[in-house]
């Protein structure tokens, strides 16, 4: 079955430090991968996506993600975390033959502390 996994329920990082939120996928065909962020009582906001091409994808608010086919990963990164980055982050996959149907991970709560 095609799936997306986020192995960490929560990630804590100090403000100013680099952050990484992990995502791995399992698929037989080509994956199309997305990152969304959700603030309390808000909908999901699109951050970035990988469709094809350069493995390093740059997105909104200084976030970037690296697609690694050999490790089947699509980790979200930011060089310097801000307290305002604290939110719930979702990785999602759209798999070949699945229409435009997103399969979401379970989410990772990011907490950035002063």
């Amino acid at each position, binding site marked *: 079955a095609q799936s997306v996994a986020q192995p960490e329920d929560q990630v804590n990082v100090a403000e100013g430090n680099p952050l990484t939120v992990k995502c791995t996928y399992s698929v037989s065909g080509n994956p199309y991968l*997305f990152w969304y962020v959700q603030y309390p009582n808000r*909908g*999901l906001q*699109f951050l970035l996506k990988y469709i094809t091409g350069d493995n390093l994808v740059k997105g909104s608010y200084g976030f970037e993600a690296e697609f690694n086919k050999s490790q089947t990963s699509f980790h979200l990164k930011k060089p310097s975390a801000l307290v305002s980055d604290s939110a719930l982050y979702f990785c999602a996959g759209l798999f070949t*033959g699945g*229409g*435009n149907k997103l399969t979401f*991970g*379970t989410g990772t709560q990011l907490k950035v502390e002063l």
Partner: protein
Amino acid sequence: EAGVAQSPRYKIIEKRQSVAFWCNPISGHATLYWYQQILGQGPKLLIQFQNNGVVDDSQLPKDRFSAERLKGVDSTLKIQPAKLEDSAVYLCASSFLAGRGGTDTQYFGPGTRLTVL
């Protein structure tokens, strides 16, 4: 550009009652999606429309859930009768490109938080 609009934002009902949610997608977006997000989980697709036709409703509990998009723009999702396990956030999303296999980005509304007592 206006985003995806949803109403109401919050709804509390008793079990066995009915409830309806409304969604207005981004102007020009052909595809509309309804997701259910249970606390602590990622969103799960309930139904996908392309214009006013259903593309995928394989995970919609059709004995109690229904949805329509009569004129290919606004959509309503209804639950009748509601169960305790229907307590969740119901998210509406839309994307520009139509058709299967599209990789266009889905943009989400703020959601409706439903509590069933």
